[in-house]
């Protein structure tokens, strides 16, 4: 990428859009701790609800810094929007939660009824990819039905309407806690991250990251610099100050502090340079491309997509 000479003008009125995903707390901490105050004074933060919301923010130029599942910026880049991936902040947060004591491994899922969410979207694709690798045909060997959101799947589990569901965080933690209050025993039977590791090397899935619009990098190299220096300490603070982090999440992301805090162990936050784990990211992208090329807009993103942290 061509970078213009550094300008002395800070970016004003930046709206940071966070993915509705617990790992976003890293970027929130960075903002709240004043890490971006110099480069982007008055930056505001808001969760986006769906990709339409995100797309409108990006196209209008209101938002140029986001956290997001990493297939989204790749897809947008392939559609001609110059998006760049700076860092991975979540190494996966999917698990199979069940009340069925007979389920311990993927193989045990055969013949069971399972509730999934976001059909054909990333969580579903990850599950299907792993299932294939485990020798299970998700369309034939298991009875997979879908609901609209993880909240509904969690609700069904808690209410006893379903025995097994694929869940993300924090709904998985929330479901287990709520069921516990009524004496129903739910547990995380399978970590999809572990399962992934058996087939793709490391037991982690680079799922969510921080991405920017190229124009933001051009306008304010200082902001990029601030992100580079601030993200890792923000993560460290979150892991070290769990209670405060949960309060922060409650204030800015409307999470429930108790659930958030417990869920911290399971959503695998980390801060890793995109360029540094490009091979792992591409493994993930290829797995998705195999199953559903349209998810990424057909191809791998170009070289300039990956930024160094």
């Amino acid at each position, binding site marked *: 990428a061509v970078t213009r000479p550094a300008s002395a003008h800070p970016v004003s009125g930046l709206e940071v859009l966070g993915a509705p995903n617990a790992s976003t707390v890293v970027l929130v901490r960075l903002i709240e701790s004043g890490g971006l105050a110099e480069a982007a004074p008055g930056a505001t933060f808001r969760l986006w609800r769906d990709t339409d919301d995100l797309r409108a923010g990006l196209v209008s130029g209101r938002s140029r810094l986001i956290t997001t599942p990493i297939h989204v910026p790749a897809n947008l880049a392939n559609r001609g929007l110059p998006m760049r991936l700076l860092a991975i902040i979540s190494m996966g947060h999917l698990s199979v939660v069940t009340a069925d004591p007979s389920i311990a491994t993927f193989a045990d899922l055969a013949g069971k009824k399972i509730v999934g969410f976001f*059909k054909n979207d990333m969580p579903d694709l990850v599950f299907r990819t792993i299932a294939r690798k485990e020798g299970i045909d998700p369309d034939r060997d298991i009875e997979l039905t879908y609901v609209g959101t993880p909240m509904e799947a969690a609700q069904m589990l808690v209410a006893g309407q379903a025995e097994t569901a694929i869940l993300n965080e924090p709904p998985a933690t929330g479901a287990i806690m709520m069921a516990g209050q009524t004496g129903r025993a739910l547990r995380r039977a399978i970590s999809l991250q572990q399962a992934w590791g058996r087939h793709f090397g490391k037991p982690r899935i680079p799922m969510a990251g921080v991405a920017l619009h190229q124009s933001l990098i051009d306008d304010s190299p200082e902001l990029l610099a601030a992100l580079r220096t601030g993200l890792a300490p923000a993560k460290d603070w979150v892991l070290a100050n769990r209670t405060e982090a949960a309060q922060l999440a409650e204030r800015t992301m409307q999470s429930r502090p108790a659930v958030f805090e417990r869920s911290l162990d399971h959503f695998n936050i980390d801060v890793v340079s995109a360029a540094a784990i490009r091979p792992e990211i591409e493994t993930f992208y290829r797995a998705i491309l195999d199953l559903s090329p349209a998810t990424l807009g057909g191809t791998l993103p170009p070289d300039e997509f990956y930024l160094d942290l």
Partner: protein
Amino acid sequence: MNAAARLAWGAAGLAGLAVAWEAGHRALGPLVLPAPAETAATLTTLILSGKAGPALAVTAADALGGWLAGAMLGAALGIAGGLLPPLGAALRPVTIVILGVPPIAWVVLALLWFGPAGLSAGFTVLVTVLPIVFAGAFQGILARDPALGEMARAFGAPPLLKLRALIVPQLLDHLLPALATALAFAWKVAVMAEVLGGGTGIGGEIATARAHLDLAMTLAWVMLAVALLLACDAALLSPVRRRARGVA
């Protein structure tokens, strides 16, 4: 105005809409609004590839099934409520509540009763259609001409004749537009319920297209649903509209 002129003007209106769309596309770019031509091309591919048929069948079943059930229930309750004032007064706020409760509240119930796949989209449609048709039928009954009712009583007309010869023709004046509105809602709500629900039908395909951030594909599916709605309106309601007031 005859049927041909009406059709021509209707086509002109739709053409105007297409022009507005094209203008929007030029002004805002493909990431916000893909070109109508591109969308139409995508739709053609969809149809030719055979993907459209099954999705369409599922959505049509959801929309029309829910519409039919909701319309029959709504019309029956509306007529009964119109003829029996206390019943009508009791039902009116209930239907407003049913109408005003956002679908998220129903989703829980629907999931529970019908499971994630099955009938929950149809149920959501029913719940939307029922109050609309109720209101139309209710108003149709209330607005009928008392002078004609007296005439029928003076001739000792049995209830069935009154219904057929007096009530229904006057009712249709209010019921038909309600049915048309409800039909349009039925398609929209069926699609939305599928988008938010188990991922079947046109709505499921839209959800997938959205997950792919593929706007042209999303709009192609929407276009298909709307085309079907217009076809349905023409096929189901126009004949009734033409026959309205033609009853003996």
